[in-house]
């Protein structure tokens, strides 16, 4: 049984707890939150408001579900104390944060450090990866990803809009998932053009929209739009290949505000085959279940047991994504 401590019992901490509770070989060993009232909700679990005291208990692993600004310190301290770490995204606020955590990971020798890029474990994304990797539609030509949400009431005063705490705006908060997915499908990007703007929430010190066009070393281009002014929530990822295409539309969430999660795919057909040009035979798969949290924990568990190394959300993924995000910020703010 792997004993896991959760640090930070906000929305993500609670999702992680539910997932751990459902895992046959993991248990929540201790909980930490800056709000002392939270402890009363979990009377049978050790609770403290000080994360250092939680680490002193020597859990097997810790899940870091805190604000972005404290992630690096907690991650590094846990690794120094020989504790495996799963941390929510973003991996800190900057590339230098990631490098610090990578150093701690190196010094710890065999401790696992994994970051939460759960979107790769959504069934729509897994299906897309299988199609792209099978090569049945040929090589990837280009990609386009949109991930947007509505900022909502109190957005200006939220911690997400505080540059010191969050480190960045919607791109670093939510857009990071799309950046990760574009890297996952296209590869690393060497050239970035972008606009990073405040289109609506003008009083906040971080962006509410980021638009980027990125090119890989092989010349594949990806477009990205990350938005906090998408009044209708939206997730879409289009991948066009030589002989076909696929589009992931929607992503399952607890509120279903991003709609049904589906993947539409088709082989290209010209007018000799299709009933109308540009209207090929399509197949759509709708997914009714989000097991991404479970799959993510399963992978973390297998890694801790030495059965595999971290393939999704490892520190190299974290570093590359943060480097790309910094490039988008840099290019977009010129």
């Amino acid at each position: 049984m792997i004993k896991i401590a959760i640090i930070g019992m906000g929305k993500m901490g609670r999702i992680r707890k539910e997932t751990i509770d459902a895992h046959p070989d993991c248990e929540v060993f201790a909980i930490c939150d800056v709000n002392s009232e939270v402890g009363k909700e979990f009377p049978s679990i050790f609770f403290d408001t000080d994360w250092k005291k939680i680490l002193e208990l020597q859990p097997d692993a810790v899940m870091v579900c805190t604000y972005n600004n404290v992630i690096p310190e907690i991650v590094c301290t846990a690794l120094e104390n020989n504790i495996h770490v799963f941390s929510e995204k973003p991996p800190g606020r900057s590339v230098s944060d990631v490098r610090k955590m990578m150093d701690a990971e190196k010094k710890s020798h065999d401790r696992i450090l994994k970051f939460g890029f759960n979107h790769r474990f959504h069934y729509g994304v897994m299906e897309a990866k299988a199609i792209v990797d099978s090569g049945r539609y040929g090589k990837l030509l280009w990609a386009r990803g949109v991930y947007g949400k509505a900022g909502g009431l109190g957005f200006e005063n939220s911690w997400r809009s505080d540059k010191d705490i969050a480190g960045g705006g919607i791109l670093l908060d939510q857009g990071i998932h799309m950046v990760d997915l574009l890297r996952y499908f296209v590869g690393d990007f060497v050239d970035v053009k972008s606009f990073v703007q405040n289109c609506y929430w003008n009083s906040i010190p971080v962006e509410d929209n980021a638009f980027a066009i990125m090119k890989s070393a092989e010349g594949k281009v990806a477009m990205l739009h990350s938005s906090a002014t998408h009044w209708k929530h939206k997730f879409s990822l289009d991948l066009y290949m030589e002989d076909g295409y696929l589009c992931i539309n929607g992503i399952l969430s607890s509120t279903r505000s991003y709609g049904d999660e589906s993947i539409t795919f088709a082989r290209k057909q010209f007018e000799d085959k299709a009933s109308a040009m540009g209207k090929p035979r399509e197949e759509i798969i709708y997914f009714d279940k989000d097991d991404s949290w479970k799959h993510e924990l399963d992978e973390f568990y297998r890694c801790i047991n030495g059965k595999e190394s971290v393939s999704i959300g490892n520190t190299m993924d974290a570093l590359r994504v943060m480097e790309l995000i910094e490039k988008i910020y840099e290019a977009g703010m010129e």
Partner: protein
Amino acid sequence: MIRHEVFLPTIKVDDVHHNSMYKHELNLAKDFVSKIAQPTNIKTCPISGMERHEVLFEKWGQRYAMCPKTWSLSIGTMPDDKIMNQYWFDSDLSRYRGTAEFQNASTELRKELWTSQVEWIEGRVRRYLGMDKYSVVDWGPRMQGWVDIVKDTNFIKDYSIAESLPPVEPTFKKENYQAVLMFDVIQRYSRPLELLLKVFNSLVSGGILLLACRSGSGFDVLTLGGESESIFPLDHVCLPSPQGMAMLLKSAGFEILELTTPGLLDVQLVKKSLDQIPKNRYFQRYVTSLDDLTLERLQGFLQQNNLSSHIRVVAKKPG
């Protein structure tokens, strides 16, 4: 867990069946079935084992009874194995279906559908087994054209054929395979669980079954019943509903990865048989009189909600 919708506007009913040949086939089947026993008693459901009392329709003297638990349909009293063997291997119908004329014409018509089906198989194999080549057994094929397409696909390294119908020759060796294909087969077996147990035992642990068959709770079957031209009683002795199929698979030990009904033809089949629909079935008559775009959307709705009469399954042998 998942739902399917397939958009294939170029496929029409007449693309699947050659009209005059289909009529001949139908007459031969009718002739055979009309001469066998026509029992009136209703035995328990071969899927759930439940007592059955409701006869949904009768065709060529065979009564189709409904399972009260799963809504599956099957013949009330199954013909014995001798009759079934004669039907499939030693009848005018089986000989006609084995002719080059029949095989070639069917292959020509269904090539596009089969190509899509093979692409689906490859997609599912890649999704669940990964990027490699696999040993595959094709259970019960009856079209040489289908076999020719499947055996040359790049994800298969070893292709065997089990319990095929003429003219396809079986090549099955008793060993364990990584995937089993079983298309339009289960519907002709009077003991479907027995069949699935055999299939289960022929798979390696972690191996997958890819299956498709007619459903007894699909739109065209429920709407047309005995008037459905696409139901031949001995070709379709057992028509599981999605619930019935799930029950069978679980009873055989499988873990269901996908169970969907991406059928393309329900609405077209009903529309084609509009003259057969009794006048008092106002709903069916009205629906099928709608414009093509609406009917296309209706077919999409049937597909998405497991209401079409074509079931597709991916199931795994645990381990």
